[in-house]
């Protein structure tokens, strides 16, 4: 491939690709995201490939292994274009029929279609699946259409149209102005206006003129994986955004700092970088514009704190990932002391969309203060889990019931956790809250990177607060005292409460301690660390009091406060639990009622999981409130 030297050459290439592809050729898209990988999608893909060859269909159909389609719950997913026939839970054995019937004769295979369990309605295409219906996938939508390891797929889908516009038609100030008008705010958590960072960085003095742009792909929030899916499924969108940003800021070196837990993302990104260089879209004299810019990949080492900008930059320089005080922002003095602009993966992926479709169009989506869409990972106790991209301002109710398909196992919704360890739990009573940066903050939580974990009555809110506090205690770098010592103390108290050793006054003390940690910590980790605790005390004080005063866990989660027993009416005496109990705590003869010895039981839950008759009960000691 010869390097492209001008817009004209890029456009010629684009029409060549489109001409070559234009025709009656169908294509079969197999989701190759990490979720579908776990369901062995690669076997489905190779079975399809084999069938296409065997049935000699190569001239009529093309097979594509794409990035994540989002609906991870129902993987492996296969979509046949142009009809958009949507198949779920596909196995390698289905390949014969998919190729002969759907590809060959245009027939639909009923058993592979998705059936909406709520309305018992069959969905033939992706658009008819309720999970997708309320979504607006302006950033994430291309994931299911392109092979991330083939730059020509991205170009054919209209990729790299924003870049020439930014290079030849707009000046740097114009680009920043466009981003300002779009209202884009950082998708990594805090929601800082993107244009402001760019402008500060552009006008900041640099002793040798060097400036950097960084893509923060150290997606550390447990429960969020949209950055991973974007990097794996559509890496060129991020590169295109970064090149445009670099041009606006006048930077020539960029980094993508990516979690080492994401090997496929690192691989696909590496392929994308090589291809972009080969095509003259990265490197020296991009598209003949005279602008130089290149990107390096840097892998993280598994530290949550490195999502914080100053810690990330320290670790990029080869130091340990400790943050520093930010009275001087990284936009002024960042990597190697030079002005540095850092944005999150999803923010970068929004940039080409804004430049090519215009700020006016973009700013029509969303709410007053939060423009555009946001990708959420909708996970936890809902039917349809996966990645969803929705306009800002959608309500939690729509998220949980329309997209998520409601709660699993007929249980009741209790709370929704957003914002990861920096966020909070929003109670069911606020279900009509519109989701945007400001509303979530007002409710005591935050947008964070977009994790949305749905919890039912079987989730204990004290245990959740303890979970996040433990997480943060382990991830605290230890540099400042309030975070290091404060969180440790907070964890001790929460552990006491969940183990039945809580005492009156604990809650007030926890709230006070939370306030101090928030105020006095050095960086954002400590500054937001008390949020999970404070938001759960705010909305679920009863539940805390049940633990502290009555030594009772209403959700039946905290081990020290529950007991296991056998349901006499349901036990068939099958001996499975007795055989598998690691402590030998279950006794009983075959076909006779079994009994659990509470003195030996370690409450591991294995018996409950293995029992096919649902005969193991979890209950708490008898207690009375009044």
């Amino acid at each position, binding site marked *: 491939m010869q390097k492209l030297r001008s817009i004209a050459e890029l456009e010629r290439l684009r029409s060549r690709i489109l001409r070559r592809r234009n025709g009656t050729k169908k294509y079969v898209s197999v989701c190759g995201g990490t979720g579908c990988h*776990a369901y062995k999608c690669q076997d489905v893909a190779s079975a399809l490939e084999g069938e296409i060859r065997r049935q000699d269909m190569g001239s009529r159909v093309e097979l594509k292994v794409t990035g994540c389609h989002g609906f*991870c719950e129902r993987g492996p997913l296969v979509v046949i274009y142009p009809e958009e026939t949507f198949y779920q839970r596909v196995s390698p054995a289905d390949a014969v029929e998919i190729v002969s019937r759907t590809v060959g004769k245009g027939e639909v295979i009923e058993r592979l279609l998705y059936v909406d369990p709520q309305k018992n309605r069959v969905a033939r295409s992706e658009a008819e699946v309720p999970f997708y219906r309320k979504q607006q996938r302006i950033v994430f939508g291309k994931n299911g259409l392109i092979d991330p390891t083939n730059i020509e797929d991205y170009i054919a889908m209209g990729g790299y149209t924003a870049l020439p516009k930014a290079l030849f038609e707009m000046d740097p100030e114009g680009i920043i102005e466009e981003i300002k008008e779009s209202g884009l705010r950082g998708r990594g958590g805090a929601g800082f206006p993107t244009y402001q960072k760019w402008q500060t960085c552009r006008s900041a003095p640099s002793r040798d003129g060097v400036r950097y742009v960084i893509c923060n792909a150290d997606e550390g929030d447990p429960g969020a994986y949209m950055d991973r899916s974007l990097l794996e499924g559509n890496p060129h969108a991020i590169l295109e955004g970064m090149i445009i940003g670099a041009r606006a800021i006048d930077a020539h070196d960029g980094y993508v700092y990516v979690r080492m837990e994401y090997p496929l993302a690192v691989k696909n990104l590496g392929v994308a970088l090589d291809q972009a260089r080969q095509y003259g879209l990265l490197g020296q004299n991009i598209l003949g514009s005279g602008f130089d810019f290149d990107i390096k990949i840097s892998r993280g080492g598994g530290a949550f704190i490195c999502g914080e900008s100053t810690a990330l930059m320290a670790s990029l*320089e080869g130091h340990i990932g400790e943050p520093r005080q930010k009275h001087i922002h990284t936009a002024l003095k960042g990597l190697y002391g030079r002005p540095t602009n850092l944005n999150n993966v999803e923010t970068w992926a929004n940039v080409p969309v804004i430049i090519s479709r215009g700020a006016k169009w973009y700013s029509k989506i969303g709410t007053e203060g939060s423009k555009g869409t946001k990708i959420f990972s909708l996970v*936890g106790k809902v039917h349809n889990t996966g990645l969803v991209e929705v306009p800002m301002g959608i309500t939690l109710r729509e998220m949980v019931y329309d997209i998520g398909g409601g709660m699993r196992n007929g249980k009741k919704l209790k709370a929704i956790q957003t914002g990861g360890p920096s966020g909070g739990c929003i109670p069911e009573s606020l279900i009509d809250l519109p989701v945007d940066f400001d509303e979530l903050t007002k409710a005591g939580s935050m947008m964070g990177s977009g994790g949305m974990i749905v919890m039912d009555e079987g989730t204990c809110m004290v245990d959740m607060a303890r979970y996040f506090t433990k997480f943060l205690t382990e991830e605290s770098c230890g540099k400042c005292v309030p975070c290091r010592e404060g969180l440790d103390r907070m964890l001790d108290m929460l552990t006491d409460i969940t183990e039945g050793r809580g005492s009156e006054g604990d809650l007030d003390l926890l709230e006070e301690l939370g306030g101090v940690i928030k105020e006095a910590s050095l960086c954002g980790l400590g500054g937001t660390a008390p949020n999970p605790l404070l938001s759960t005390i705010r909305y679920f004080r009863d539940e805390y009091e049940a633990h502290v005063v009555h030594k009772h866990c209403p959700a039946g989660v905290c081990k020290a406060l529950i007991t296991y027993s056998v349901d006499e009416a349901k036990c068939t005496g099958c001996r499975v639990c007795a055989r598998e109990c690691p402590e030998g705590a279950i006794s009983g003869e075959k076909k006779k009622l079994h009994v659990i010895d509470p003195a030996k039981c370690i409450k*591991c839950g294995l018996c409950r*999981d*293995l029992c096919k008759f649902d005969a193991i009960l979890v209950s708490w000691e008898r207690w009375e409130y009044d």
Partner: protein
Amino acid sequence: MRIDASKVDRIVDAYGCHRDSLISILQDVQAECSYLPEDALKRVAKRLKLPLIQVYGVATFFKAFSLQPRGEHMVRVCLGTACHVRGAPAVLDEVRRQLDVEPGETTEDSRFTLETVNCLGACALGPLVVVDSEYQGQITPGKVKRVLKQYMNDGRGK
């Protein structure tokens, strides 16, 4: 274990002997030896002209690195939020019992190392256990034994 200095050199050179690649270099060394041997840390420090304390600091700060040899199979239990609410703690307990080690430890026969991770980014499949690079989704305590068994009898033992 002694590591061949030329092996380390090859890795360091692949990154242009640049100190901003320290983490990546250590990762590749670890991929080669399954952990970071002392000799390797010294060699990396020398080549990058960094004080050993800085290399050691990075090697101990980040969770990805181990200064101890690890087992043949890595068992990683995800404790991310989505996995947690779907019962990951009980899964971890069962893995600990089956392998008879605590997180961070290696079994006596050097077959398995158990680790916990904060999120593997496949939250829709939780609870999740990853053995080597195989993702096992929707694991319950009852399924743990069966999953581990596949690796116990894979004939790759010493």
